[in-house]
């Protein structure tokens, strides 16, 4: 009899505990309802891409020496470099350059290896088109600079999580001069330089 009562008591205790846990869970979900949405309301709000963002590739026609390094380092030999040898100047003359962004994987190898820095990554990522052939950018399209999110009057530019001040989770209504957490790149650079100078003095 006593054993049975103990069983009943244990069962009741477990039930109460289960109910308690469900209650705790409900408290958590209920609490989340009063918090501000964390989603970025895309066409109206946009995140500011980080400085190392790998977006559409920018190409400077006049800097290019038609060495085709970009083609060789590309995993799929994507860039099309159309050049002709100019006997008068004894140099390669570039006539067309194109990259198909429908195929590009934005690995950045071409940018990394370009000897004249004529390739660079931009922060443009809105590449939606109706026809995939429109993504085949020629040298003119590659030479265009993207519009900055912070300059767009229609868009509320939001900082990414990493670029918020320490302890701040909310990118809205942030003062424009609010400093990001940690050191800025130029500060790290200055520190490194100072260290180098100190070492050289030794």
């Amino acid at each position, binding site marked *: 009899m006593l054993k049975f009562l103990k069983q009943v008591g244990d069962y009741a205790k477990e*039930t109460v505990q289960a109910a308690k846990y*469900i209650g705790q*869970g409900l408290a*958590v979900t209920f609490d*989340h*309802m009063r918090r501000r*949405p*964390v989603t970025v309301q895309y066409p109206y709000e946009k995140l500011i891409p980080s400085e190392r963002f790998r977006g559409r590739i920018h190409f400077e026609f006049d800097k290019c020496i038609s060495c085709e390094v970009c083609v060789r380092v590309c995993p799929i030999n994507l860039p099309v470099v159309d050049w002709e040898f100019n006997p008068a100047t004894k140099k390669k003359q570039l006539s067309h350059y194109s990259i198909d962004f429908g195929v590009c994987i934005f690995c950045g190898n071409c940018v990394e290896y370009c000897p004249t820095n004529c390739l660079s990554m931009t922060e443009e990522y809105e590449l939606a088109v109706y026809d995939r052939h429109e993504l085949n950018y020629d040298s003119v399209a590659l030479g265009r600079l993207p519009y900055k999110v912070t300059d767009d009057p229609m868009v509320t530019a939001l900082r990414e999580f990493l670029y918020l001040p320490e302890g701040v989770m909310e990118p809205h209504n942030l003062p424009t001069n609010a400093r990001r957490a940690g050191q800025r790149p130029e500060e790290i650079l200055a520190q490194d330089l100072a260290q180098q100078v100190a070492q050289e003095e030794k």
Partner: protein
Amino acid sequence: MDQGIDLQQTFIQSLMDLGLPAGAAKTVWMPLPMLLMIIGATVGVLVSVWLERKISAAVQQRVGPEFIGPLGVLAPVADGLKLIFKEDTVPAKADPLLFTLGPVIVVIPVFLSYLIVPFGQNLIVTNVGMGVFVWIALSSVVPIGLLMSGYASNNKYALLGGLRAAAQSISYEIPLALAVMAIVLMSNSLSTIDIVNQQSGYGILGWNIWRQPIGFVIFWIAALAECERIPFDLPEAEEELVAGYQTEYSGMKFALFYLGSYVNLVLSALMVAVLYLGGWELPIPTALIANWLGVGETNAWLEIVGASLGITMTLLKAYFLVFTAILLRWTVPRVRIDQLLDLGWKFLLPISLVNLLVTAALKIAFPGAFGG
């Protein structure tokens, strides 16, 4: 007991004054509340779909539908329109008759159950003496439709979903009925009107939830299981069964299932409001308000305001329960099929039996407080 506003009597009387015979007058009246109730149920579904999406979004710190009408209120309408215009396909190897009949059998009993939902003393389609029992009986028809559609789809997921739905409905029907029985024991009537009237008089203190707290919890758990809401949505568990018995359905037939599930949710919430939360009663007794205002209880203005307040109260209570169901959806994970059956047979059933026995004992011991 004061009868309050009786639209039916007034309407029939005025038609009879115009020279119509009594039978004809009643025939003219009858479709009106039915149509109103069907429209009301459908609008209730739209509201609860919108709430579901908005509350789900809020719980997950999203915004939810925002641009389809103010605050996205037209989102469920857009959903419905999309489903109407979609192609209605029947799989080649399915049984076309049963496949079509399935969703119909699921939806009709749910809408029929609105027959007995009261929004006021006389604001009910028909005051059946069998009241809640009609609802329980009708809700046991639904699994037949689910099983039928699952079987006729000729798809293993659909069949499994249908079987699960049937098993679930059968195991949760019993605790549900037993919880209702305890209420019926206290109010000495199956009629929903009588059940609410038995709770009136003391405002919030008179509601059945205080006398039947365990019954309330059992009823709500069983009702959620009957509606296949998330902790118990095994029949359509998308990770395991694609979409259960709905897998092969599209277009209007799928819309019927979708509609049926939400109508059922609102209906269950309404039934909880009626059985446990005092139906259309205000938290403060009406007699007390009449006393404060210094008018008689039969004052015409007070009755009109009271009737509209009653409808509001019923809906508020029901939608509060819908809200808890949605919140629960994002709080608790889905149970396993064996846990589901364990909970139904080994937990809810004995507890509801004990609850019934205790209620009966209390009724004999304290006939005053437990409706002797």
